[in-house]
């Protein structure tokens, strides 16, 4: 990037800078006219100059110019107006000028602001563009949060400065120079004094500011390091808790903040010191004028008129000078920030733009062999990982890379994946250096999966298909306001030097996955997920999540069908006791009292959990049904029992998981509440206290808690209350609850709850597992398996994929690599989080899946266990960064080398 900020700004905005300068100069005309006008109004119509005779008139808007050679030429003789008319006319002109000046100001500020924002957008994009092109090693040394701060915060002040970058010095410099010239004209000596002081200011102040620059740079670096550390704490929060180092982190952060404070405070002190000095110097000049000028007047060497003129002219000098110096300060500030950022972003060996150029059409397959030629790789510390390795992988070959602890096979895999660059030698595809081939080829024809997986915070589907999003493949047509918006987007993007590639386009390269479009992509996805044994996990996620019905149209209806099928199936297998279905006219003993009352899924906060008992409408229904008192007494009973059972347990005791009614923290509150309410008649208990107690009864399940609180009479009353509740449901609660209806899908509930439409009995130990396997069977029979898998794919994997287990993440990474159908599939200890048996199984599936439809990609796999090498045509053994052995599994086993040793 351009190291000088001024040049960077000038290169990209020279036309706009010139334009705004012209506008500003133009705006000076009405500005100065409005200065002159008050004098005209006061002297003319108000004081009556020129209107001495009653009825006298003066011309208004007379246009006449004194042209050379021709003399006075009159273009317009003007209107003849009397005194009052002139007053009104001149005042109106004044108003007009005020408006014109305001409009100029508005235009100039908007223009400058937009100019700044465009530049800011350009700089930010340029920086991110550079990040995308940095050589891999750079990322080993830099913290992500620091880069993010640079792009986001550190360049931010540039936006404000850019509009003024050239305008301000020209304008203020011009003003200062005019004032100076005027003084010089009045009196050369006094002028010299002013010049000397200004020169001192110009020389001294920037010198003093050098320290400000140094401090500014330190401030920026420490602040950046702080954000890096905060980022690290967030990423490594697990390690902090495990090792009880939170106070170490606190100390570190406090120390950093202390340092930042010190620097900032220094900065303030120095800044105001400079300001003070600057002000003093500015005031010294009039002091000298009074003293020396006065002395000269007394001596008779200068006349009073001249001195007064000089002093009044000097009034116009400090203003612009001060602003100019402020501008200079801003400039230096911004320049430091810019330089700091640019320094960080100036890296040797940035990837050339052509390597990453947007390529829409599919590249031809990679038919040449992949080879390492005298390849050496070293780690960041300079230790050799690979030492002059030469190796060739032919298309279609499957190769296991077996490595001793210091073998270096991973480094080779990373070199093939271009994740690390050779120190010497090269990697090549056919005759071409691999690093010179566009990513459009390597990124589509090769794929790579490793144990170190990064997932984006998005759905499973987005992460899985991420590897197919190389280029926008469709051009989206927009109409109406969307079209205008799109046009605006394109235009603005171009003005800021951003690309106008449409993110809304369909980026998924269906063809490379072996599909023709969105409709048959899913089949491929499913096969790949089956191959890495991830489908079951995703199905489970699907069952546990609530399906997005806008995406999965028709799914709801099928699930409702499924309920009946499940019911008959359970009956056939004699398992109907496992699930107690929800029936509108019956009490469900395996569900809580709250669920039986509401008989629906809360779709909003109004009726969810604890809010239910406190809801006024719900309370009124309970009263009508004659349940309020019963449930209150029941709640009191439960509170007593729970406190008797749990009161003397420590709050973190695992038994509290069994206590569904209240949390450990609530026990003391309920204890005092119980004391207070014990002998009080029901009528005297406040609404809020009632709700507190009644809410306890809502969590009660008789077969599970076995307090013996449920009678047949109570159950029928609850069913009656349920109907009452829905009969008069007020409109504001219509959307807060979805009533259970055997013929309807409940959008607010999970898929599993919708399938079961009931509760699994508490007294069957293996019921959940048995039911789940039956549910999967039925889903498959009804052809809903894929649909459910699709629901599961909506699952958001969380930041860095942390909502998945590491095994699931690794499987997903392999699936993503497979989906691309590459010519070369590079696997680098891909499934290390899984146990050996599962690794073998998945790897076998992966090889089979990669060869589906008669494809024969080359597969290079760094195996975690030498025994896995049997699955490959060829085995290459690495030891201490050297290629130790190369052959088939049989030949290596027959030899007496490293491989045999590793196997034993």
């Amino acid at each position, binding site marked *: 990037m351009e190291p000088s900020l001024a040049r960077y700004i000038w290169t990209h905005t020279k036309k706009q800078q010139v334009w705004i300068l012209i506008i500003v100069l133009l705006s000076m005309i009405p500005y100065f006219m409005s200065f002159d006008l008050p004098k005209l109004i006061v002297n003319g119509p108000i004081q009556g100059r020129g209107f001495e005779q009653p009825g006298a008139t003066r011309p208004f808007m007379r246009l006449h110019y004194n042209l050379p050679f021709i003399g006075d030429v009159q273009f317009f003789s003007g209107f003849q107006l009397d005194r009052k008319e002139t007053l009104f006319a001149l005042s109106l002109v004044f108003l007009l000028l005020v408006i014109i000046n305001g409009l100029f100001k508005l235009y100039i500020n908007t223009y400058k602001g937009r100019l700044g924002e465009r530049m800011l957008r350009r700089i930010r994009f340029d920086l991110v563009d550079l990040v995308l092109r940095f050589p891999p090693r750079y990322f080993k040394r830099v913290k992500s949060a620091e880069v993010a701060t640079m792009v986001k915060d550190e360049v931010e002040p540039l936006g404000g400065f850019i509009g003024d970058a050239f305008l301000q010095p020209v304008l203020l410099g011009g003003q200062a120079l005019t004032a100076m010239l005027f003084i010089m004209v009045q009196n050369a000596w006094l002028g010299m004094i002013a010049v000397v002081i200004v020169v001192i200011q110009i020389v001294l102040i920037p010198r003093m500011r050098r320290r400000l620059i140094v401090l500014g740079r330190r401030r920026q670096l420490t602040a950046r390091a702080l954000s890096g550390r905060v980022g690290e704490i967030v990423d490594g929060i697990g390690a902090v808790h495990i090792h009880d180092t939170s106070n170490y982190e606190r100390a570190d952060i406090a120390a950093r903040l202390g340092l930042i404070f010190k620097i900032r405070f220094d900065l303030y002190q120095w800044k105001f010191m400079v300001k003070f000095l600057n002000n003093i110097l500015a005031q010294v000049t009039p002091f000298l004028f009074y003293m020396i000028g006065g002395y000269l007047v007394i001596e008779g060497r200068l006349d009073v008129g001249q001195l007064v003129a000089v002093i009044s002219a000097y009034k116009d000098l400090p203003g612009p000078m001060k602003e100019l110096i402020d501008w200079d300060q801003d400039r230096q500030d911004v320049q430091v920030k810019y330089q700091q950022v640019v320094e960080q972003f100036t890296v040797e060996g940035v990837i050339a733009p052509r390597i990453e150029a947007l390529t829409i059409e599919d590249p031809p397959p990679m038919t040449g062999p992949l080879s390492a030629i005298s390849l050496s790789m070293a780690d960041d510390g300079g230790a050799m990982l690979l030492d002059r390795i030469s190796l060739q992988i032919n298309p279609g070959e499957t190769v296991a890379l077996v490595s001793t602890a210091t073998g270096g096979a991973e480094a080779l895999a990373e070199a093939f994946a271009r994740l690390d660059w050779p120190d010497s030698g090269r990697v090549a595809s056919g005759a071409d250096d691999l690093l010179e081939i566009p990513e459009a080829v390597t990124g589509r024809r090769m794929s790579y999966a490793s144990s170190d997986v990064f997932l984006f915070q998005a759905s499973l589907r987005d992460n899985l298909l991420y590897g197919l999003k190389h280029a926008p493949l469709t051009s989206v047509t927009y109409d109406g306001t969307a079209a205008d918006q799109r046009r605006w987007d394109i235009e603005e993007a171009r003005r800021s030097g951003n690309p106008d590639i449409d993110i809304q386009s369909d980026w998924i390269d269906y063809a490379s996955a072996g599909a023709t479009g969105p409709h048959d992509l899913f089949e491929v996805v499913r096969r790949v997920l089956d191959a890495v044994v991830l489908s079951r996990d995703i199905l489970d996620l699907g069952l546990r999540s609530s399906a997005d019905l806008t995406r999965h149209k028709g799914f709801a209806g099928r699930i409702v069908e499924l309920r009946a099928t499940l019911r008959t199936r359970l009956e056939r297998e004699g398992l109907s006791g496992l699930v107690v279905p929800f029936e509108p006219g019956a009490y469900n003993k395996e569900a809580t009292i709250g669920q039986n009352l509401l008989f629906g899924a809360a779709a909003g906060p109004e009726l969810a959990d604890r809010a239910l008992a406190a809801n006024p409408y719900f309370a009124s229904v309970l009263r009508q049904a004659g349940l309020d008192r019963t449930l209150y007494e029941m709640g009191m009973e439960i509170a007593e029992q729970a406190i008797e*059972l749990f009161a003397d347990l420590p709050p973190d005791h*695992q038994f509290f998981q069994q206590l569904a009614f209240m949390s450990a923290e609530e026990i003391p509150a309920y204890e005092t509440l119980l004391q207070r309410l014990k002998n009080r008649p029901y009528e005297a208990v406040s609404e809020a206290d009632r709700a507190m107690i009644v809410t306890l009864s809502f969590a009660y399940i008789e077969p599970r808690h076995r307090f013996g609180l449920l009678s047949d009479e109570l159950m029928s009353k609850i069913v009656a209350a349920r109907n009452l509740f829905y009969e008069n449901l007020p409109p504001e609660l219509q959307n807060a609850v979805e009533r259970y209806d055997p013929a309807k899908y409940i959008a607010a509930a999970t898929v599993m709850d919708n399938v079961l439409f009931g509760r699994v009995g*508490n007294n069957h*130990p293996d019921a959940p597992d048995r039911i789940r396997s039956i549910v999967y069977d039925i889903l498959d029979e009804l052809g809903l398996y894929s649909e459910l898998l699709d629901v599961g794919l909506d699952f958001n994997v969380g930041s860095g994929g942390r909502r998945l287990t590491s095994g699931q993440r690794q499987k997903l990474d392999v699936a993503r690599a497979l989906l691309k159908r590459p010519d070369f599939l590079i696997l680098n200890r891909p499934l290390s989080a899984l146990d050996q048996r599962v690794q073998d199984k998945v790897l076998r599936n992966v090889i089979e899946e990669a060869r589906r439809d008669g494809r024969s990609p080359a597969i290079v796999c760094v195996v975690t266990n030498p025994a896995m090498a049997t699955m490959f045509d060829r085995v290459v053994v690495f030891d201490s960064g050297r290629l130790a052995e190369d052959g088939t599994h049989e030949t290596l086993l027959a030899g007496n080398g490293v491989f045999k040793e590793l196997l034993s």
Partner: protein
Amino acid sequence: MLLKDEVGMLQRVPLFSGIEPTKLKLLAFTSDRVSYGAGQILFRQGDEGDAAYVILSGRADILVDSDSGPIKVAEMVPNSIVGEIAILCNSSRTATVRAASPLEVLRIRKDHFLRLMKEYPEMTIEVLRVLADRLSHTTADLIDARSAK
């Protein structure tokens, strides 16, 4: 059967007979009520033991594997406990338990039981007393058996 009835049942189990009723209530509350149909297996010989079972109603057979297939060695009736050794030490099941009729049991989880013992030392002492009692009986039986030889 309600929680308080279960507490009554537990009190009749020798291992728990000396423990305060309130603690037994907590034990019962944190345990699961589980039903089995006739022929269902509670646990198998060789499984890792993770819970003890108190029979509340119904009958269960205790089976031991032999070369000629499983042999029934005992029958459990209400108020008896099975698998209690497994919740005190890390041993695998020495026999298979199968429901002989519809069976209701209280499943006492090992970790819950151990937590209770940790929380209430007086309960631990009671359990120890029962175990020591058993041991002295076993020792006496052994001496009898030796001297009868």
